[in-house]
């Protein structure tokens, strides 16, 4: 055999041998999480936890939110056991907890102070009174606006604005020749994208996803009013290409001074006031998310939480880590190393000290919004589901995205509001029927 062929074979044997040398060892805790500032900070500060627990080695898998959701769903449904700690939202906590895929977070030590965690957040992560995930941070939706533009135009933002007022302000503040747009709202299709925002608009207009018999409600006048309002205000005063804009795109527009008003997640508060990211950091005002005929469901509730799957290989150490990362001790560590304004918001009453409220000017509005949310009664009329910007049923991801695509098409102008609502109604009726709703028994 020629030398080159021998080299080739030897190389193959060597590389295949090397591939075998990568097994995980006992004491490893694999944590799947999302890439955002708070989670990356947790990853950095977790060295303290490893110092306190020399037998435990943390391994991090950081993924983009949608990829993470797909990965975790695949892994947990097949009991793959790739992860010991999962970063999940309220939607997954409710569904997976009910299916028995998550370990119950019971017998928490007194030092954890579970009573310090806001009841709305605790309830959102529980099923039948059993807690399945520990909240890392929680967010609501609030209104961001440019104080300088309001002042120049002689306008005053009320503490609790209505959508009609927001539309009037947006009209007056739009100057397309200067690339200054009155309002920026999510338009990108997706159940966690435009539908999160549009659901809160719809709730405010008195609309609901389903009636008590799980019949879709897109054929009702409340939805027509809400969607007409959203499409009209965005067409008149929104930025071009709004149907492609999600959280990040609107954040970029707002931070570069192109939006006068933006309604979105409260987590953006720290970004828009950060001078290293925002050109308008000094002139941002904060107020409550707009309402219309009701303030029920006008602001959403979301929480990133840490959970342990039943398939976890190292659940004992995983539990120790989840308790540490969501504890008061961790909050104190963040305050000490990174400043009090960087403490994970929205989960514990003890976070909201005077010092914190002073450092984070949006903190009080976030806190009051979180206290006021009622996921079991998200609008005027009664509903059979739990959730403000989402419906906690397994079918919602598909239904929400389908509806989101129709509404995004209405925003682009490729279909009318009426046609989008008709299409959303018929598609949702079909999907719900296929899923067996209304459920018997």
């Amino acid at each position, binding site marked *: 055999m020629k030398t080159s062929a021998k080299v*080739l074979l030897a*190389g*193959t044997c060597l590389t295949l041998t090397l591939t075998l040398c*990568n097994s995980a060892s006992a004491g490893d805790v694999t944590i799947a999480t999302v890439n955002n500032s708070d989670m990356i900070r947790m990853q950095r500060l977790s060295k303290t936890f490893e110092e306190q627990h020399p037998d435990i080695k943390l391994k991090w898998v950081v*993924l983009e939110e949608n*990829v993470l959701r797909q990965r975790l769903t695949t892994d947990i449904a097949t009991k793959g*056991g790739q992860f010991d700690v999962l970063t999940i939202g309220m939607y997954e906590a409710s569904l997976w907890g009910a299916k028995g895929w998550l370990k119950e977070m019971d017998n928490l030590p007194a030092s954890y102070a579970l009573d310090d965690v806001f009841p709305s957040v605790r309830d959102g992560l529980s099923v039948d009174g059993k807690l399945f995930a520990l909240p890392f941070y929680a967010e609501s939706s609030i209104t961001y606006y440019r104080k300088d533009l309001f002042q120049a135009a002689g306008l005053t933002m009320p503490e609790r604005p209505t959508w009609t007022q927001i539309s009037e302000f947006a009209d007056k503040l739009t100057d397309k020749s200067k690339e200054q747009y009155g309002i920026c709202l999510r338009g990108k299709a997706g159940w966690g994208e435009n539908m999160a925002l549009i659901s809160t608009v719809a709730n405010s207009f008195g609309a609901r996803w389903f009636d008590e018999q799980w019949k879709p409600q897109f054929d009702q006048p409340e939805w027509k009013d809400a969607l007409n309002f959203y499409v009209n205000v965005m067409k008149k005063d929104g930025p071009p290409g709004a149907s492609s804009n999600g959280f990040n795109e609107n954040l970029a527009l707002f931070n*570069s001074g192109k939006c006068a008003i933006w309604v979105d997640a409260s987590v953006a508060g720290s*970004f828009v006031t950060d001078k290293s*990211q925002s050109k308008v950091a000094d002139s941002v005002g904060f107020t409550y998310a707009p309402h219309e005929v009701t303030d029920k469901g006008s602001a959403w509730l979301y929480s990133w939480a840490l959970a342990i799957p039943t398939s976890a290989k190292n659940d004992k150490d995983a539990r120790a880590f989840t308790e540490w990362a969501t504890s008061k001790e961790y909050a104190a560590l963040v305050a000490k190393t990174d400043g009090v304004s960087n403490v994970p918001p929205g989960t514990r009453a003890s976070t909201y000290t005077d010092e914190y409220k002073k450092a984070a000017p949006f903190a009080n509005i976030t806190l009051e919004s979180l206290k006021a949310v009622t996921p079991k009664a998200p609008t005027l009329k009664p509903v059979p589901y739990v959730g403000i910007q989402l419906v906690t049923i397994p079918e919602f991801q598909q239904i929400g995205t389908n509806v989101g695509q129709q509404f995004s098409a209405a925003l682009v102008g490729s279909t009318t509001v009426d046609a989008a609502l008709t299409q959303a109604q018929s598609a949702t009726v079909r999907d719900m029927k296929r899923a067996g709703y209304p459920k018997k028994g």
Partner: protein
Amino acid sequence: MMTLKQSRRLQSVLLGSLSWVIAALIFFPIFWMVLTSFKTEIDAFATPPQFIFTPTLENYLHIQERSDYFHFAWNSILISFSATILCLLIAVPAAYSMAFFETKRTKGTLLWMLSTKMLPPVGVLMPIYLLAKTFGLLDSRIALIVIYTLINLPIVVWMIYTYFKDIPGEILEASRLDGATTRQEIFKVLIPICKGGLASTALLSLILCWNEAFWSLNLTSSNAAPLTALIASYSSPEGLFWAKLSAVSTLACAPILIFGWISQKQLVRGLSFGAVK
């Protein structure tokens, strides 16, 4: 009146300019990615886009601090090279048999092999995931090596088959008359003649393995995660981290770009010429 020589010169200049424009358009996203990686986050999304700015290394320092780049790069190297070698070891005998011992089903088999590339990977995600779980291969390099080998096998067999088909049968007959065995025929006659083509096929397979993201994101977590997983970890739905994402993408692309740069002569020669032309 333009002479023939002038006309040809003008044609050559126009074609040359067109090639440069196309090359610049293709290269621009890579150029922009590298440029953005040296910007601050606020400069990264500035409008109008900034070409002149104060460069910073803070994004690279952040990556160094947060991630073990060399762990991911080592996984990428091991997985890509192993899968490519394995692929060639299977594809060369397969292509040899198909090119020189053709049956009435050969063409059909080749087409069928290629048709497997048309299957959306997500369609087989669950069965593959369950198989990997059953064999204890989740988050292991072996799982990725096997999958990448199988994914690239059709295209590698096809390419090698076309190179082998270009070799006149008389050359092989002559070697057989000289008493060459099948192994000698492959190693001493075929491979030396087609080494340009084989090198370009190997390089293509290597690039495909290096860039593959679907399976690496779904089947690995920490131990076996390659560079594509590292890039994904810097993509953020809440927060503008474009400069950091550009920096990590630059780091992930750099090894394969350098490797491609070094071996570009082989690649062009292999792709544009047959084995014995």
